[in-house]
């Protein structure tokens, strides 16, 4: 299931890229900037700003929508089958995120910007959510793209079983691997996942001679200290096969979406990090022989 095709993306791999956002993620990081990507099924989103109280959504049968003072009230806990509310709201205040797309449909979307990829190594980036948690169709899609000679990158946390990774290999894919933390306790507290699986997958992937770039979301209270970043960098260096690391400063571009999903945003009170605050990390990473960049 896909929730967005983002064209002219300039920060998710080289050149001009179309990013395909898959829905569903085995983690739930507290700072996640795409909270709508976490659930594997469709998600209901409600943007009160846009609501004109046309009331068409209330006419649909549901046990979780009711009229409110300005706009509607949603009982988020009881939301089921939100897809039936798709294209009901004329003002697009109430929308449903996530749609099943066939490989053919996805290829049509990719084809649209293909002429832009060719100038300067652009291509397709699979993101999410966790693209590697998708079913086997992903492999067929990757095969198609490989045949079409379209550059592919995958943004992944690698928090998936090795088989899911393995079946993608051998197609000259650029893996943009999120390495959030090396400490298992912190990793679990902030993401709900297991660092060991991630670290072991990275090692295996590095050993299989794939192109890997390590991307570190730099998150206040989580890993934004020199010591913690140093450990991530040191781990990266130890992989030998990985030459490049990117630091992605924390931002709150997704904050509005938490509200739209009826979710809690633990990072609402925290400020965006500045590019300048990454300087120290870049200096260190370069000092140990990595190519370091800020942002994608």
């Amino acid at each position, binding site marked *: 299931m896909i929730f967005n095709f983002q064209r002219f993306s300039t920060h998710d791999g080289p050149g*001009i890229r179309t990013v395909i956002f898959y829905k569903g993620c085995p983690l739930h990081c507290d700072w996640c900037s795409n909270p709508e990507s976490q659930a594997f099924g469709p998600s209901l989103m409600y943007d009160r700003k846009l609501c004109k109280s046309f009331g068409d959504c209330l006419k649909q049968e549901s046990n979780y929508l009711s009229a409110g003072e300005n706009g509607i009230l949603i009982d988020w806990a009881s939301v089921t089958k939100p897809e039936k509310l798709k294209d009901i709201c004329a003002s697009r205040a109430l929308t449903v995120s996530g749609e099943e797309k066939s490989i053919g449909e996805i290829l049509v979307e990719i084809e649209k910007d293909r002429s832009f990829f060719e100038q300067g190594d652009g291509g397709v980036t699979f993101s999410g959510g966790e693209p590697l948690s998708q079913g086997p169709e992903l492999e067929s899609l990757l095969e198609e793209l490989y045949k079409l000679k379209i550059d592919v990158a995958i943004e992944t946390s690698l928090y998936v079983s090795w088989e899911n990774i393995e079946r993608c290999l051998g197609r000259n894919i650029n893996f943009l691997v999120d390495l959030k933390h090396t400490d298992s306790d912190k990793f679990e507290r902030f993401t709900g996942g297991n660092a060991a699986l991630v670290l072991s997958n990275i090692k295996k992937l590095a050993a299989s001679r794939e192109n890997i770039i390590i991307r570190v979301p730099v998150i206040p209270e989580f890993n934004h200290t020199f010591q913690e970043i140093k450990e991530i960098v040191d781990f990266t260096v130890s992989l030998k096969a990985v030459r490049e690391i990117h630091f992605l400063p924390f931002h709150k571009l997704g904050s509005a979406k938490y509200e739209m999903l009826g979710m809690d945003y633990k990072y609402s009170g925290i400020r965006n990090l*500045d590019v300048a605050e990454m300087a120290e990390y870049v200096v260190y990473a370069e000092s140990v022989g990595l190519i370091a960049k800020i942002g994608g």
Partner: protein
Amino acid sequence: MLKSAEVSERISGLREKVLSTKPNVCTERAMFYTQAYAENEEKPIIIKRAIALEKTLLGMTIFIDEGELIVGNQSSSHRAAPIFPEYAVDWLPEEMDSLDKRSGDAFFITDEHKKELVEIAAWWKGKVLYDKGRALMSQELRDLQDSAIIKATGNLTSGDAHIAVDFYKILDVGLNGYLDEISLFHKQVKRYEQDGVRKDHFYTSLSISIKAFQAFIRRFQELAMQQAEASTNPERKNELLAISNNCQVIAEKAPENFYQALQLVYFVQLILQIESNGHSVSLGRMDQYLYPFYKKDIQTGNLTDEFASELLESTWIKLLSVNKIRPWSHTRFSAGGPLYQNVTIGGQTTEGLDAVNELSFLILHSVGKMKLTQPNLSVRFHKNISETFINECIRVIEKGFGMPAFNNDEIVIPELIKLGVEKDDAYNYSAIGCIEIAVPGKWGYRCTGMSFLNLMRVMLASMYDGLDKYSGKIFYKGIGNFADFNSFDELYKAWQHQIKFYAQKTVEIDTAVDTAIEEYVPDILCSAFVDSCISRGKTIKEGGSKYDFVSGLQVGIANLGNSLAAIKKLVFEEKKITKHELLQAIESDFEGKEGEKIRYMLLNFAPKYGNDDDYVDLLLRDAYLDFIVELEKYHTTRYNRGPIGCRYYAGTSSISANVPNGSVVPATPDGRKAFTPVAEGSSPSSGSDVLGPTAVFKSVSKLPTEKIMGGVLLNQKLTPATIKTDEDKEKLVSILRTFFTDLKGWHVQYNIVSRETLLAAKKDPEKYRDLIVRVAGYCAFFTNLSPDTQDDIIARTEQTL
């Protein structure tokens, strides 16, 4: 190469002076023209006009300001607009008292001048082009114009222009060269032939005009000399002596160096704008015709880049000091009052090589440093254009004053050749005015800007059996009412039926306008500088030019596509809206809750042009083609009189005409509210393109651009932060390359988004859904962000600009 961002003290002083001068009105030209016309009433019009120009050039106030390096003034002070009473003058006494209160383009005017103007206006009653042109039109054509479905008022009140003359030749043969050529042809006139008398007068008027031009230059030669003699500052004395010497040379001969060449170019540019009232008089490919002078001077050590740049900057200030006053009805169509004096750089040589040279960079940087509205700088893009040059262009764009714009050789040149333009000429095209194109010195007037056709009024008329609800008139009986249509096809046929009629009417109006201009305000000097007027013995309007292609302007492109798509999809295919509901909604301007809901359905449930969606893009293409194919059947008034072509093509370079054109259009089926602006040029409706710039490029390139040689205007918004880093700039260049090289885009220009725009977007997200901003290295749509993040970006935009 000179790159310093600083301008000299002299330049910043001159710049400040012109910028801080409040535009006023100068009556000198009006007085001289009125006198000349009154004293020579019996003479043929062409002689009368030559005498009037002569009288003005000899009699008008001239001045050289302290510090000026390039000299020549259009009227008695900087930024004072001369009056061209022979075009239209009635409006002046009427608007006189409100001139200084206009919301844009205000002028102040003294009581004394007001009195003079009243007298002048009285003398011209019934004699002006506007009245005579209107009189040539049938009642139907006048009604069409009054209804504002077709607008051509500006062409009668302001004349033509939209032209660049042959600067190569001017710099090569000098003004005496023209006199020689004129006398050569004058001698051959067969006065016993029907055409002989007319030609005789034409050549007489040409030599009066050129000689008057020479005398005008000599006046500056003398003035500079007098000032030099009086000057106590030895440095300035030398400068004035140089100016005087320059004038002495170029009054007669071809310029000997870069400085003289530039001065002569400016004089020509200036006189053309004293002779005639049109705007978009353009300078053509300045980095090409001036290059030999530049190169020679640099090689011999007679010129430094610093001084060359200072001279260019002086010229830009001079261009800005030229001014024009237009009636409010016309001013509204071209906001900000610019004169669109275009300078084109880059492009290819006639051999197809990259034409970018050191002077291209100097011009680019000098314009970038000045940040003025003049000249209007265009860069001709082609696939082998210097990478460094394009990168520098992006840096200038980043400064946020909208320049340079890009035109694309990869489509323009092959299409010109297909139209019958010779290869060497096609490779030498330049931008005129804002985005339109012509071959300098070989093209007739008005490569664009003939009648403005309001497409949405036509589209609405096709829904009401031909009734134009706004004026209450049926100009052309339709084939039925939308309320009775059973398929989209019927509506589409109704559109085809109506648009054919209106296409023909635009040509009828143009024909009347051209006939009037030819007869009542022939331009002489301008004709001298356009190939082959002298050898044919004809003014441009009589068929003197080598080529003749013109375009009117069609306004409301995106709205047309979006309206058709919305009706097709929501009314006929998905049946989400009934015909009755739609009619009710647009007739009531989406009144009430139901109306508003219909509006949102139209906005949100139907595909929109600008998102690379074939559904709407191809529908628009076809609907526009219905107009274009019809238009191509007609010829201009010069047909069979000499020029190659004499044909019409489409054009969308409508500048800010989308605002006044929208102000006379009721609510439309694309969800647009009544009387609000329609979409600009060929750009998507504002805020409707939500997939980013590549999707916009794709949509625009699906238009039949090869047939829209009057210009495919695309304005894109950029926030400063999205092109901050070198990598960002590279990516912008990369999509430009794809747009131009692969997709054969026609034109693009960038507006750097200001803080005000962001504030407006926060308040009114619907209109700004296309705004992309950047936070912490990520790009996002501004209107999707939470209010605090928006505030943060707004605060930071203030810092960067």
